[in-house]
């Protein structure tokens, strides 16, 4: 069986013996892999790699402004080194930057914390539900399916001064004006749209926990809270950490929601993405790409920290796993 298997494969099932043939297969596999991977990498290099690199280059240039000695308008770009970056941290531009930076961070920390708590809650309820699972699953997917821009409009409508939110609360809060309330409007809208996503990921994590573990805990006299804290939480942690990482990265680049819900150029909700976008709209590409690059680095640092410190296993079961190979080999040995 094993000899037949290793002939055409080159896959994970190839045993470690028969080195010469294996080497040959590995070589063909490698060439084939390169061939099949190249279209994706070509496209990613063109539509993501090139823009990011050219953005970093662009951020070292400034649009030339003003007139030369003959009174002609100077056009073109001027190399300014790191000036665009140093300008971010001080003066008027620094104010806008730090404001956007703290908004972005505040939205991310608050929204993701709430999303995680609510998402875990949703998952626990869904896991307990005996009937109507299809109905729950479908309804949980509704906020996910609503386009972000449309949910921005919807919440803008709900949060109008004479809208339904104020009617229900019996308040006169100016949610969509430039103020502290608008920050909460953004967070509420964001949490509504994305906590179901965390809920689904956590639910999938819950479903693979064997029932016997809880039975054993109950026999040992563990309370519901102890079961949750000492069994559920550690066992869903891998799924949860990955979900939280994805949500963090997605919230850090937030654009459409504040843009549609409150509007551009509003200090209270301006995010780094919006700030970069505004500068690009004013044709100040150097400044815009400097903002974008800072955001990019910010995201990279957070992703790196998550993977290294919290051990977020983003590759999950897709990576070429060693234990699986061992199992395969055992199976073959038996055969």
């Amino acid at each position, binding site marked *: 069986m094993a000899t037949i298997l290793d002939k055409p494969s080159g896959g994970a099932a190839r045993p470690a013996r028969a080195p010469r043939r294996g080497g040959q297969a590995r070589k063909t596999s490698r060439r084939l892999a390169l061939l099949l991977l190249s279209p994706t990498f070509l496209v990613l290099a063109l539509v993501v790699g090139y823009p990011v690199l050219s953005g970093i280059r662009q951020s070292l240039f400034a649009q030339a402004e003003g007139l030369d000695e003959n009174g002609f308008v100077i056009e073109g770009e001027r190399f300014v080194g790191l000036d665009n970056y140093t300008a971010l941290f001080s003066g008027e531009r620094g104010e806008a930057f730090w404001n956007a930076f703290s908004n972005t961070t505040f939205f991310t920390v608050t929204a993701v914390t709430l999303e995680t708590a609510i998402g875990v809650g949703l998952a626990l309820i869904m896991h307990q539900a005996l009937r109507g699972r299809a109905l729950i699953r479908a309804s949980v997917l509704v906020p996910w399916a609503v386009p972000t*821009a449309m949910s921005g409009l*919807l919440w803008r409508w709900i949060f109008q001064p004479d809208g339904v939110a104020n009617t229900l609360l019996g308040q006169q809060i100016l949610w969509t004006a430039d103020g502290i309330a608008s920050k909460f409007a953004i967070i509420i809208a964001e949490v509504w749209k994305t906590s179901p996503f965390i809920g689904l990921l956590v639910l*999938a994590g819950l479903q693979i926990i064997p029932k016997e573990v809880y039975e054993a805990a109950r026999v040992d006299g563990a309370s519901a809270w102890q079961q949750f804290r000492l069994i559920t939480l550690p066992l869903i942690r891998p799924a949860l950490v990955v979900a939280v990482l994805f949500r963090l990265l997605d919230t850090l680049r937030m654009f459409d929601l504040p843009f549609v819900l409150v509007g551009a150029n509003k200090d209270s909700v301006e995010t780094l993405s919006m700030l970069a976008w505004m500068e690009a709209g004013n044709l100040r590409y150097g400044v815009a790409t400097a903002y974008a690059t800072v955001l*990019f680095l910010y995201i990279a640092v957070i992703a790196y920290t998550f993977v290294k410190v919290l051990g977020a296993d983003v590759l999950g079961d*897709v990576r070429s796993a060693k234990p699986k190979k061992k199992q395969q080999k055992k199976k073959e040995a038996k055969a």
Partner: protein
Amino acid sequence: MRRVVLPYLGVAVILVFCLAPFYWMVVSAFRRPSDQFDSGPWPSPWSTENLEAVFAPGNEFGRALVNSLLVAGATTVLTLLIGVFTAYTLARLDFRGKNVVLGVVIATSMFPGISQVVPLLKLFIEIDWINTYQAMVVPSLGFALPLAVWNLTVFFRQLPFELEQAAMIDGCSRGQAFRKIIIPLAAPGVFTTAIIVFIMAWNEFIIAFSMVNEKEMQTATVAIAKFTGVSGFDQPFGTQMAAAVVVTVPLVVMVLIFQRRIVAGLTAGGVK
């Protein structure tokens, strides 16, 4: 008693949390414009005036829907054409540096859209691509392709490997085995990925908003956000809610029909 009632209460809370805002969108869409600020729980009387206003000639909303369909459709088809081969490679072949490849794919999906949009905007102005479909489709590949490759890889890994080998023993080439065995078996996974990519591309905003400034080329989400009221100052919420219902309901129907698949696709890779 508590054990019986509590789960139902929880379910009710979930349903209200998820559906109430969406319900409000639908209700507001079907009110008469003169009742727009009513806060009753349903429209009385029902009216399709808002819906008719959406398709008023000045909005060119029909055209915007077609644009959305073209952009999202082209993005989905291109993404799958390219992604299927990559995912197959990652799921099936054993080669050095595979985890690095996977890492690069997942890292690309984490890039902020803005660091892609600003340089591409400048480039597209230079090469005269502003107000074209390709200016929206090409950048969309940047978020769609990693997502598709990821989902497909997870699905492909679950396929029975032995069948492919059996086919090759029976004399199929690797290409034939792929075409005749793997593709039919992988169809559900490919289909699921297609739905998810389509929904993501249909919902895309920042690229479509940046690369297009002509009304005829706008996608639906951008068109709705730009609807203007009669006076120009008051936002036409009724019309916007009706239009939002028009672009969202097809997605909600898809979600209702394919919920199992979509959940499987969304949780792919997130859980081991």
